[in-house]
């Protein structure tokens, strides 16, 4: 019965809750094309004014880092404490910095 089943490609959905805020991943939908994807995303993820803007992206277009090499991959930022403002000692007398 399911041999001819075709539930359409998978799309990832990103919702912006209000203008000025970043788009946030909400989940996924199935859809045959981009028009259907954005309508399904609206019906599924914004039934209660959760957003005023949407992105849908074909799931297979997303490239993700892999958890196995997480340590090495993000290592370059580990030894650069001088990138943080707290690295620098400024005398108390100096204000507004």
């Amino acid at each position, binding site marked *: *019965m*399911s041999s001819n089943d075709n539930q359409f490609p*998978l799309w990832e959905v990103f919702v912006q809750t209000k203008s000025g805020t970043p788009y946030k991943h909400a*989940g996924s939908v199935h859809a045959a*094309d981009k028009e*259907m994807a954005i309508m399904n995303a609206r019906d599924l993820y914004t039934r209660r004014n959760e957003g005023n803007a949407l992105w849908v992206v074909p799931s297979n277009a997303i490239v993700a880092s892999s958890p196995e090499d997480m340590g090495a991959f993000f290592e370059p930022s580990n030894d650069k404490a001088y990138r943080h403002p707290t690295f620098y000692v400024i005398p108390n007398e100096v204000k507004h910095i």
Partner: protein
Amino acid sequence: MENVMELEAQFQAKIDRGEFIEPKDWMPEKYRKTLIRQISQHAHSEIIGMQPEGNWITRAPSLRRKAILLAKIQDEAGHGLYLYSACETMGISREELNHQLHTGAAKYSSIFNYPTLSWADMGAIGWLVDGAAIVNQVSLQRTSYGPYARAMVRICKEESFHQRQGYELLLSLCRGTAEQKAMAQDAMNRWWWPSLMMFGPHDAESAHSAQSMQWKIKRESNDELRQKFIDKTVAQAEFLGLTIPDPDLKWNAERGHYDFGQIDWEEFNNVIRGNGPCNKQRLNHHVKVHEENVWVREAANAYAKKNAKKSETLVA
């Protein structure tokens, strides 16, 4: 072999630290299988759960009630889809999930195999069935698999509407005529025990519990959750003026909880085995609609293909 044991130890340590597991993380095969079973069962329950309520859409007593019921059923579809979406991150396809439901390889909550005989059942389902589901789902917001936990957070936000509309519906009936009040009591009598069964077997008899607790898939045991539900529901029933159909139900000051009577596990197992009042009807309906709509999916695919080709030639 040693490598797997090491990976398993790291996996457990991660869970013990309270971190979440994400789709691309290494996980034991049994963790994956347990979650696919649990999340898909949960998703199927939401989808099959649309049927008993769909039964009353055309007979809702007012436009207000009809609009509410439609919105609630649409939410159930939404919840099913959030959960399918979470389940698919474990590498199983929607097609396979459907197939498992249709062949009986995957189950859904046995509560939806009971018929909805009167309008008051729409109230009892919202108040009791969704009420029981909320207790379970609130706990699952902290489940160890990230996509499942996130789906639960979203569902819990929406579920409160389901319970409150059900309670309000029953309140109207209970403040109405003697016949309306009797209708509410009849619904209470039929839905109380199946609602308690929704939490599953007692902890001692629960097949998957210990491992699921260790992996923090489950955060509280079946019996703990069931007790929570009873404790908060009794006063709500009293306010409605309805009697809970359990002569053994009474407050136990020493435990700080309500004691309650024996659950009929034979009935529970019988419904799970497929012999409930509506098992065949529910599944047949799902299969029938799925098959009747093949042409819609084919047409949508053909249209998408044609348009993709068109935009290709335009670019070229």
